């Protein structure tokens, strides 16, 4: 199980690095969908093997909402030609952001070793923490609302992975998961759709939101 977890975890880290590399929104959405499905498969397997139905519920949530619904909805909502929708000028250059994402992974490992490792004794528990931080960085480094939302959802995936694997007994995690998904759905339903209609507008009219 530990080897399987390490495999899935490093695969996820690679996928987030790939998202940092990619500029086309559609490809990032597809990558995110793959990442969610992978985590869902792992959680499902874990839940079945260790007979924990809560983890199975988490897996179903992950696959249904973040694997299928949100990517599907986003792809439907890309207004211009899907293959053309992309980040024109990222805030941080791509190569630098890949390297920062990598160093975030290393930071998470060090953090995990000095805090958790003494009590948990699972050497690969740092991977979900790394994924959370990578998600934060994906959000910071891009301006596109879709990609920011994907960064947030990636954090959520990582939280599920963390709790499903390390603390399956944690109370109220399913409720928390439902709420997190609700946030995502509210966000895309109410906001993104509106914003995307004018995705090309200049940011001058947001002058009021500065300072």
């Amino acid at each position, binding site marked *: 199980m530990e080897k399987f977890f390490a495999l899935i975890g490093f695969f996820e880290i690679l996928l987030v690095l790939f998202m940092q590399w990619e500029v086309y929104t559609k490809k990032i959405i597809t990558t995110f969908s793959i990442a969610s499905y992978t985590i869902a498969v792992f959680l499902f397997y874990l839940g079945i093997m260790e007979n924990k139905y809560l983890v199975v519920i988490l897996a179903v949530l992950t696959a249904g909402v973040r694997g299928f619904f949100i990517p599907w909805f986003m792809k439907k909502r890309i207004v211009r030609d899907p293959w053309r929708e992309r980040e024109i000028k990222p805030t941080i250059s791509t190569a630098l952001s890949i390297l920062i994402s990598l160093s975030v992974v290393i930071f998470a490992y060090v953090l995990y070793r000095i805090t958790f490792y003494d009590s948990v004794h699972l050497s690969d528990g740092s991977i979900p*923490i790394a994924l959370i931080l990578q998600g934060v960085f994906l959000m910071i480094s891009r301006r596109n609302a879709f990609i920011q939302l994907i*960064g*947030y959802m990636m954090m959520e995936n990582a939280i599920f992975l*963390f709790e499903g694997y390390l603390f399956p007994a944690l109370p109220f995690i399913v409720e*928390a998961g439902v709420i997190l998904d609700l*946030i995502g759905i509210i966000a895309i339903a*109410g906001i993104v759709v509106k914003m995307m209609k004018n995705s090309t*507008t200049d940011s001058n009219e947001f002058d009021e939101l500065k*300072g």
Partner: protein
Amino acid sequence: MGYIYSLPMIFTAIGAVLCLSRSMYFEEFVSVISALATVVVTGTVVFLPDFSNGFLYIDGLSKIMLIMISAIYTSTVIFSTTYMKYIENPLFEKNFYYFLMNLFAFTMFFTVSVNNFGLMWVGVEATTVTSALLVATENNESSMEATWRYIIIVSSGLIISLLSNVFIYSATHTLSLSMLMSMKVTNAGKILTLGSMMAIVGYGTKAGIFPMHTWLPDVHGKAPAPVSAIFSGVLLPVALYVMARILQIVPVESVRIFSFALGFLTVLIAAVLMVAQGHYKRLFAYSTMENMGMALIGLSLGKYAFIGAIILLISHAFAKSSAFFLTGNVLAKYKSHKMTDVKGISKRMPFTAYTLMFSSMAVTGTPPFGTFIGEFMIIYGMLLNFPLFYTLTLVGFLALAFIAVNFKIGKMIFSESDGEMMERKRVGRIVPMVNTSLAFLVVFLIPQIQEILSKGMIR
């Protein structure tokens, strides 16, 4: 016996469901009734003993939060009944607005009365779910952008606090508040310390505390006035309530110093940014940040400063909600967010003008108001714990904030203008006036507040 403590939640939930029906003025009527009912219930709860079972945990702090929420919720709903007509082109129907507002109040009541950090987190995150669309009510480009920033920043901050839940659970093997309170952690390990710090940062996002405060001015600037009022008045204190719980269960020096530092930096940054503001709603938003920073300092110091922080939060809730209602009045009539466009309020809207003057004095901690007593107690606590230099710096920045707010608002009120009278009628005048005077009347209730906090009830 326990059911009475959950009545505020039940009333708001029923109110929310009833609001879904579409008949004229029915949703306003239902909301006002359920809000008043919560006031009555929370008013009686303070005379009842502490209570905790598997689901609820009500002690003195929760009772004070319940009263605050119900009072601000009531005034917001009443103010909304006449204010909503000034919003052109709203994002949704009026009944959906009240539905969300009631649900929002429900999530806040839920957060302050549950007995579990996991559920508390769920409650705080649910406040984001229910309030996100409220922010976007005005339905224009920049309010959408503000909502987007609100959702994305606050929810990622809250993911950090979810992680802190995991940390706390792994260190103590429980998330139940009553068990953690009886545990009396004195020597916290690395995980618990780190978890508490993450909780401070995570919930601090929702409370507008320094490193992740950036959503706050945008949202308060662009949300409609009643929503800004309820955000500033009680939503941020609800997040502070969770932080206060964390500080209560992990009374470790490093966590206290950490939250003190964050609160201190918040005050500094807010005071500096206030000087540069040209939009009056954003000015009050930064003033909220400053007050939250002060309250966090108070919570981190404990003892008298803790009581001071609670007094500050209560009187600030009344004063700041009143201030935001009044900015709503000004915005409705002048149609501009900019200070330079708003001139001579005292000539054109005298009631609004003088109430605004008093409430802006109240939010900056001028003597007759409760905020002054609260800040005074916090500063006294600081003098006992820290070198004089820190206290003087803090007082200096508080003075800067005081001058910035009162000078700018004073210029808006007392400048010359030759427009005609355009004062708002009954509700638009009375609600802010009542709230401002409540911010003052809190002063007389300080002994009772202290009694609730120390004994849990008033005998």
